[in-house]
């Protein structure tokens, strides 16, 4: 019986403790800067090096480049850039290999959609996704 009483005492003591839950989704969840959420893409920084596409473990990135419109300039610029969030595991490897930091993680993690098609994000969508962008991208 003594053990039971001790346990009950512990439970009663917890009553006065501060609550530990968050009022999510009414208030945004506090997240650290490094948190890995949906990527933000800067088309003007991209040099079409294909490294993000090659490192992706689930092959969810698809990109196509085109010739620079200005004939005096070398290299390519980005034409289409798609991430399929049906299979993206937010592993952060694409932002790690990007030499120009054209792709960066944000703190936005709410990916749920009513339709699978909407999980397919294109260049425009990723470009507009510019809230809560990670401030320090590389260690």
């Amino acid at each position, binding site marked *: 019986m003594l*053990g039971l009483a001790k*346990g009950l005492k512990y439970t009663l003591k917890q009553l006065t403790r501060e609550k*530990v839950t968050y009022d999510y989704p009414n208030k945004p969840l506090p997240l*650290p*800067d490094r*948190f*890995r959420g949906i990527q933000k893409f800067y088309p003007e920084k991209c040099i079409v090096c294909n490294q993000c596409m090659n490192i992706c473990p689930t092959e969810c990135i698809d990109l196509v480049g085109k010739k620079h419109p200005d004939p005096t300039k070398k290299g390519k610029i980005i034409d289409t850039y798609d991430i399929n969030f049906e299979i993206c595991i937010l592993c952060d*490897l694409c932002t790690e290999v990007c030499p120009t930091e054209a792709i960066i993680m944000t703190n936005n993690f709410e990916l749920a959609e009513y339709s699978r098609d909407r999980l397919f994000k294109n260049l425009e969508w990723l470009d507009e996704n510019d809230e809560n962008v990670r401030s320090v991208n590389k260690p």
Partner: protein
Amino acid sequence: MLRTEEMLLNVGPQHPSTHGVFRLVIKIDGEIIKEAKPVIGYLHRGTEKLAENLQYTQIIPYTDRLDYLSAMTNNYVLCHAVETMMGTQIPERAEYLRVLAMELGRVASHLVWWGTFLLDIGAVSPFLYAFREREMIINMLNELSGARLTFNYMRVGGVKWDAPEGWIEKVRDFVPYMREQLEGYHYLVSGNEIFINRVKGVGRYTKEDALNYSLSGVNLRSTGVKWDLRKDEPYSIYNRFNFDVPVHDGGDAWARYQLRLAEIEESLKIIEQAVEQFPAEGEILAKVPKIIKAPKGEAFVRIESPRGEIGCYIASDGKKEPYRLKFRRPSFYNLQILPKLLKGENIANLIAILGAIDIVLGEVDG
């Protein structure tokens, strides 16, 4: 005389007490289990086969998804295997960050076990307390790696991120707090007569059984075998820390309960010492080539995960992908003793016995 008939009962795969998608087909005679047949593979993703087409860095996020309660140890075992093959020297600071992350993960993992085990056998409030403390650890690891469970934190040659500002202090403050809470847990549960009667003598096996079934971790130590790879085959920098390996000779669920709580205490000791010895500055990643190629040959390494010995075997033909990768997943091996333990048991003990083994289905199914 009342005549009873044998009956087949399916437990799972969608059953909250099987901790995932584990299915058990049991033949019962009244309340007594005559035969139990585990059916596994519902969460099989073929990690080992997938890895054959992936670069070593790309495999790391997949290891997170094996034992998802302590992903840091899985990260480590893969990196450790590749580093062993390449002969890489890991910087001091990276080693300390790895140990801190792994030990915090071990505490978090044992807390989940403690909460869910008691939930399984009918006590709801310990689960809430355990998750309150676990949430603090998860938040710390989130600050460090950027994810709450699938960390993808370690890299071949070191770690991805350095500790953020104030993180080490946070870990230091967490240790005394957790010790105090642990004492509370003992108050709440360990002395409870109902609980003790419920688990004492349940799921008992001998030392010989444990060794024959190649059990490891707490499941082995609960039979009196003092075997912990952190002590017996020190890897990383574990030989610098002073800690004990708790053993018990009960061989039952009560022994395993006590050992897991004692292990939290030992992990806190390691964390405390690691924080003290933490180098003020230094590199976090060794000089490794951008595309990692393990030299031709093979290697097998094993480390102590919260569930037992986790091993990683790599056969490489010198390319950037492994030729063959194999994980020795402790949950899978520990689960094999279940049919033997369940034979002749009362059906009410089924969940207590399964819970005490501590399996993670992501790891069982691979």
